[in-house]
């Protein structure tokens, strides 16, 4: 048995005495979202293993592949996703301070960042097509399209989830005392950012 009991965030009063963070040893969001997060992280881990296997078997193709990709698009999307995670973290600070209007503003910024990510990714795919790059070009681009499109889908539905949470903040369902759902969405969104933290160097940087 652990020394301290596991605490679910919404079921206990929040203690902001320590640097403005909630009580220790809690589970951010709720248990189901963590089941989802670990499942998604495992799914992406299998994709990364597939990438490693392909890379050791086709070293020349994987050495040349990143040079043909649009690094500007990859970098922009990294900056945009990191910023969106920051906006969501700020939204959590605001809701805990009982500032729903400020929370909503940060969530709109996060949604805008998700939209910008999707627009940039569309531009990148179009740019690839113009360069004669497609999913069947070679094994590197096969892995690239499978990984990035899968991640794109996560950004799309993660952005929709933030919108759903925003509407619930607006309608007063999430408050300073009770905001488990918002925290679960925020945690899931950070997971999407974390996965990109690995995808970006694998596909755009490492050779």
């Amino acid at each position, binding site marked *: 048995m652990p020394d301290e009991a*596991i*605490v679910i965030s919404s079921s206990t009063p929040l203690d902001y005495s*320590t*640097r*403005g*963070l*909630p009580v*220790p*040893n*809690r*589970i*951010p969001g709720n248990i189901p979202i*963590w089941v989802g997060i*670990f499942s998604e*992280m495992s799914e992406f*881990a299998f994709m*990364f*293993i597939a990438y*490693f*296997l392909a*890379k*050791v*078997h086709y*070293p020349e193709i994987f*050495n040349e592949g*990143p040079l043909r990709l649009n*690094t500007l698009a*990859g*970098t922009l999307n*990294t*900056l945009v996703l*990191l*910023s969106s*995670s*920051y906006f*969501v*973290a*700020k939204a*959590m*600070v605001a809701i805990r301070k009982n500032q729903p209007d400020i929370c909503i503003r940060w969530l709109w910024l996060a949604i805008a960042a998700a939209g910008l990510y999707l627009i940039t990714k569309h531009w990148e795919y179009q740019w690839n097509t113009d360069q004669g790059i497609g999913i069947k070009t070679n094994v590197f681009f096969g892995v690239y399209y499978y990984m990035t499109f899968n991640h794109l889908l996560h950004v799309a539905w993660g952005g929709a989830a933030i919108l759903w949470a925003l509407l619930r903040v607006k309608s007063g369902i999430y408050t300073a005392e009770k905001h488990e759902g918002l925290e679960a969405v925020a*945690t899931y969104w*950070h997971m999407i*950012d*974390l996965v990109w*933290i*690995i995808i*970006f*160097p*694998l596909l*755009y*940087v*490492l*050779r």
Partner: protein
Amino acid sequence: MLHNKTIDVIWLLLMAITLLSAYIAESAEPSFFVTLTICIIITLKGRMICDRFMELETANQKIRKLMNIYFYVLPIMIMLVFLFPEQLANMTRL
């Protein structure tokens, strides 16, 4: 430092590290040190997001450890692939 201020600093750090990665992508040739630098960057970014944005620093430690392990194991795999590509290819050939 208060959590609210800490995440401001972390955001700026993450942006700066990303620009460094982009610079490496555009300019550096593949080498042991470049690969090691990228691996360290992945671990640093992962830890910062997990601990500060996800607020796992003070959360349930089992969840925190599982998340952190991810950002140690994957960089180690990247290093292994860089150092021993032929051996790994031989081991995984059907």
